[in-house]
Every structure is written in structure tokens, then in C-alpha cells.
């Protein structure tokens, strides 16, 4: 009996410990209230399980909120989701707490976003990487999508040119006509990055072999590294990744083996300045900010999905940093021309493997 009591006590102690940690990590990070305005507008966001610090879309949305705070005087709140069952309570909680606009960040929160929007008709909701169907969705929710394929395409044009025609520009490039793509989970935004990259490469270098490996995880660095190493063994000298934190392993592999990597979502050059050639960026900061601004000016486009692309300054590639002088002017000219054509709508880019004719 005594023994049971003891183990019960221990178990509950451990449980309390675990719960307090969970609570701590879900704790709201409330920014201090702005002083001058009488009733500042509150804008909230709920991260997906990746949470802040992913150096990718959660951080991007948060920075968009901070930009809104700076320029528009809104009060931002972030709630982090520990698991998928937190999504609806977190989103609804923010709305009930008087937040006029609530962001859901990530493809995986789609269902939760719609449910929260239905339950809280007085608040506005916006979902990043989420498609909102105008036919069925309530009028207080909008979806925000990106043309990842545009960023991927530009990165592909660069990779396709550098790997063969301009391979003499750097000792990191070999004479083989092969580039690689490391993918995380195979979900639509990842597929769009890959397919765009593939088409970009093929547009300038039809014979180039584009190899891709799906790792099935966004947090497995070792898998990302292995995928990249296997590609490098097969002659790849530029590795693009659309794999979140898994991609850090791919960048590390490229660094160890002395080849180039191309980052994703944000400018990942700081991760490995001597390895990351550029990054296929996705302007989440900008689009989040623009959405807040629209809401403040009563232009919130509820019930629709807005797609941000190169014309909204939300897709593209990051600066070349230390490689700027290494990349030949002709390559830069082709990329600038591609951007101009893309803005003018002259380039049609498929968004799925099937459409792009990939196996």
C-alpha cells in the first residue's frame, strides 16, 4: 500500500512537471501595450507545432506582426501550439480575447482555421499556406497562398546555368550536369518549390539531371544530410532544399563536401555563408503585414484566397552575398530577364509534378 502511494506521488509529481512545461511553452507572449493610442487593435497569431524559432514561416509571420506593431500600432500576441489538438482552442481563444485579426500559420491548420472562424463570426481570420474555398468558407476568413513555384523557378534557373555552362566560375562546381532537391514532407508548398525548381533548371539546361529525395520529416537533420550526401555522390554540385529544419542537414552536407546549397523560405545565407548560394524566399513577413494593413483600412478580403507572388514582392531569390562577384553577369542578366518576364505574366509554371511532366 505504502509502495503504491509512493509511486502515485512520484507519477503525479512528474505529471505536474510535464504539464507546467507544456503550459510554459504555450504561454502567451504579450507585448507591452502601446501607450499613445486609446484602444489599440489587437492582432494574434497561432503557430503550428513547429513554433517560433523555426527560422521559417512561423518566424516570418511573427516578424510581419512586429512590423504591424511598428508601423500601424497594433498589439501582437503569439500563441504556440504544442500539438494539433491545440489549434482550435488557440485560434478561438485569441478571438474571444478581443483580437480583431487572428493568423493561423501553416498548411496543417486549415481545418482548425475554418472551425474557429465559424465559431467566432466577429473576428477576422487569415491562414498562411491555407486555401480557403470561396464557395463554402465564411466571410470572415481569408486564405494566403504563395507562388512558391516562382521562387523555385528562379533558383532553378540559377542552378541550371551554374552547374554546367558556368561551372568554371567556382571550384565547388564539377563538370557533371546534375543538381539535387531535398524535400521534407511531400505537401503542396513543398511540391511547388520542387516543381518550380525543376522547370527553372530545365528551361535553361534541358539535359540537366534533377534528382530529388523526400525525407518525410521537417526536423530530421541526419536524414537531410544523408539525402544530400547521396546526391553529391551522384555528381550533384548544387543542392536545393525545401525541407525546413531537415534542410539544415542538407546544407551541412554541402558544406562538408564543398558544394553549393540553396536555402528556402528565408535568406539562409547566415546558416553557412560559404555554402549557401542563394535562397528561394517566400515573403511571409510582407504578406502578413499587408493583410494587417488591409484589415485596418477595412479592405479585408474575407471569403477568398489571396495568392502572393512576385508582383506582391512575396516570392523571389535572396541576394548572393559573398558569391555576388563569382556569379557571371550573363547569369544575372538572365535571372533579371526571367523576373521581368514573370512579372509580366509571360512565364507559365506548373505547380504539380504531374503537370510539369516529372516522374
Amino acid at each position, binding site marked *: 500500500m505504502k509502495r503504491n502511494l509512493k*509511486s502515485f506521488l512520484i507519477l503525479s509529481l512528474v505529471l505536474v512537471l*510535464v504539464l507546467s512545461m507544456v503550459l510554459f511553452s504555450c504561454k502567451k507572449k504579450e507585448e507591452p501595450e502601446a501607450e499613445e493610442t486609446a484602444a489599440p487593435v489587437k492582432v494574434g497569431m497561432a503557430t503550428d507545432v513547429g513554433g517560433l524559432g523555426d527560422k521559417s514561416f512561423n518566424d516570418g509571420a511573427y516578424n510581419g506582426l512586429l512590423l504591424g506593431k511598428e508601423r500601424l500600432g497594433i498589439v501582437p500576441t503569439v500563441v504556440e501550439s504544442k500539438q494539433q489538438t491545440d489549434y482550435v482552442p488557440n485560434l478561438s481563444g485569441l478571438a474571444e480575447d478581443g483580437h480583431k485579426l487572428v493568423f493561423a500559420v501553416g498548411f496543417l491548420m486549415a481545418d482548425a482555421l475554418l472551425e474557429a472562424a465559424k465559431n467566432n463570426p466577429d473576428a477576422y481570420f487569415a491562414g498562411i499556406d491555407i486555401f480557403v474555398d470561396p464557395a463554402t468558407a465564411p466571410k470572415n476568413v481569408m486564405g494566403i497562398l504563395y507562388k512558391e513555384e516562382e521562387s523555385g523557378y528562379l533558383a532553378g534557373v540559377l542552378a541550371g546555368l551554374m552547374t554546367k555552362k558556368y561551372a568554371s566560375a567556382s571550384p565547388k562546381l564539377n563538370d557533371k550536369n546534375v543538381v539535387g532537391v531535398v*524535400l521534407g514532407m511531400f505537401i503542396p508548398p513543398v511540391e511547388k518549390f520542387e516543381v518550380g525548381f525543376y522547370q527553372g533548371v530545365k528551361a535553361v539546361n534541358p539535359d540537366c539531371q534533377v534528382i530529388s529525395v*523526400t525525407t518525410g520529416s521537417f526536423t*530530421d537533420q541526419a536524414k537531410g544530410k*544523408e539525402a544530400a550526401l547521396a546526391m553529391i555522390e551522384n555528381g550533384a554540385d548544387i543542392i536545393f532544399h525545401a525541407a525546413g529544419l531537415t534542410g539544415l542537414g542538407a546544407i551541412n552536407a554541402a558544406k562538408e563536401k564543398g558544394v553549393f546549397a540553396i536555402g528556402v523560405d528565408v535568406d539562409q545565407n547566415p546558416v553557412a555563408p560559404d555554402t549557401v548560394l542563394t535562397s528561394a524566399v517566400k515573403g511571409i513577413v510582407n504578406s502578413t503585414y499587408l493583410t494587417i494593413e488591409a484589415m485596418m483600412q477595412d479592405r479585408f478580403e474575407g471569403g477568398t484566397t489571396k495568392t502572393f507572388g512576385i508582383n506582391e514582392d512575396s516570392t523571389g531569390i535572396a541576394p548572393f552575398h559573398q558569391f555576388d562577384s563569382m556569379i557571371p553577369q550573363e547569369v544575372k542578366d538572365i535571372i533579371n530577364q526571367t523576373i521581368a518576364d514573370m512579372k509580366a505574366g509571360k512565364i507559365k509554371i506548373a505547380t504539380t509534378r504531374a503537370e510539369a511532366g516529372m516522374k
Partner: protein
Amino acid sequence: MSGILSVFNLNLLIATIRLSTPITLAALGATICERAGIVNIAMEGIMIIGSFFAAVTALATGNPWLGLLAGLLAGGIFSLIHAVATISLHLDHVVSGAVLNILAFGITRYLMVLFFGHPGTTDAIPLSLYRFQWAIPGLSKIPVLGPIFFNQTPIVYFSFILVIFFAFIMKKTKFGLHIRAAGEHPLALETIGVSVFKIRYLAVFISGLTSGLAGAYLSIENNVSFTEGMTNGRGFIALAANISGGWTPLGSFLSSLFFGFADALQVRFQIIKLVNVPSEIFIIFPYVATVIVVAGLVRKSRSPKALGNDFMIEKERD
């Protein structure tokens, strides 16, 4: 299909070692622990603790060797929770292990926020153990075997040494006999005057050390930073490797190699586009292969008789 043979080359075998090392280390720990009678499903959690402290220490000091030491010790200390819970407090082993796994992920997330201001991933460490790759003179020149076994990075060498060391300990030494007795017939061990408590504590601690080392391999040797959840189920694969390896160090090692081999193979199959199926099929391949091997071999292996049994000596009180 002609490309299929091109996959089977030296690089595949080198990749096998690379992918199996963390599993080997954790599986060795599981073997020692379970042979002493303590069920251990907490390797996953211990590994993540090890990888976190290894990376943090390597970041703070700039010295990956201190990081290695920190990962090792953090794993050992964390595993003591399991020892206290199961041995001293007689808690169910599986329950304690499950709690430890959840706890480890909570702790690392909490400490990430505390140390770095955000969860997710740490900054890159300045110097990784990969830089200390060392080709053993002479031996590394042996064809095939040389590049696979004798041109490796520090923790990989440790894993080889530990396999041999533990195989020797378990088979040839008195201490090994005591460990086995603690898992087969603890009462017999106690009657010859050896403390089952002590042996079991030590066994759990050893499993913590090797699992911590496995974690350190992931964060400071194979990669250069810690990422939340970077173990991705390797601790559980290690458990399976230990079981299909028949609760022996050598068997655990071979099973881990098999899983690493299957994993290395699926990546290369994706590259040559062996068959046109969704990539998920490739991703599950190593797991399915492991399940088949476990199901196939496990009938031949026998678990320690007193595995998971609580051991309690009622002491007379006055």
C-alpha cells in the same frame, strides 16, 4: 532497372555506418539495461537530452569534446530518473519509460526557450567532431573494409569499441554474469550477496550513457546543431534492434547495421527512381524491413526471464 546495380557500391556501405551509429549506441544501452531486467523504452528521450546538452556545451565552450562529455553525462543522469522510478520506487517500467520520453521533449523545448529565447533549432556549433575524422594508418588502406571501418569520426569509433567491449563484458566477466543474473533470476544473485539494486542501477546508467552518446552523435558529429525532435524515432528503432538482435551486443549491432543499410538503400532508390511509386513507400521501407526482420528473428531469441519484473527484498524493520 539497369541503374539498380550502380546503387550497390562502397558509398552505400559507408552510409550504412553513418546512419546506423546512433541506433547501434542506443541499442547497446538497451541490451545492457534489459539484460539486467529493466525494460527501457526511454532511449528516444535520453537521446534527445544527450543531443541537446552536447550541442549547448559545444556552442558555449567551442569545444566539441566537452560537448561529447556533456551529452554522455546528461544522458546518464537523465536515465537515473528511470532507475529511481523502476528500481527504488517499483514503478511499472513501461510507464516510467513513456513518461521519460514525454519529459525529455518538454525539457529540451523549455530549455531552448530559456537559453536561446525561442524553440526550434540552436545556432551552428563552431567546430564539429566530424572535423576529427581519422584514417587509421595502414588499416584504412585495406580495400572495402578500410574506408568503411577505419576511416571514421570519433563517436563511430567509440561505437565499434563499445560493441566489442560490451560483448566481452557480457560473455567473459563476472560483472556481465551479474547483469545477466539480475535479468534472469535476481533472487539467486541476491542470495550470493550481490546487490540486484546496484547492478540494475548501473545497467540503467550505462544505457543512459550510450544513449546520450547516440544523441551527441546526431547533434555534434553528424550535424552541427540541435533541432527539437531530431531523433525522429531512432530510440524506438534501437529498441527493435536490441530485440531482433536477441539481447546481445553483437546482435544489436548487426540489427542496427541492417536498419542503417535499409535506410541508406531507400535514399539511393529514390535517386535512381527505382520504381515510380509515391516517395512515402520508400520512406517506410526501412521500418517495414525492420518489422519483418524482428518478426522473423524474434522467435529465435528469448527475452531475459525476469525482464520487467519488479524486485523487492522486504527488509525487516524493528
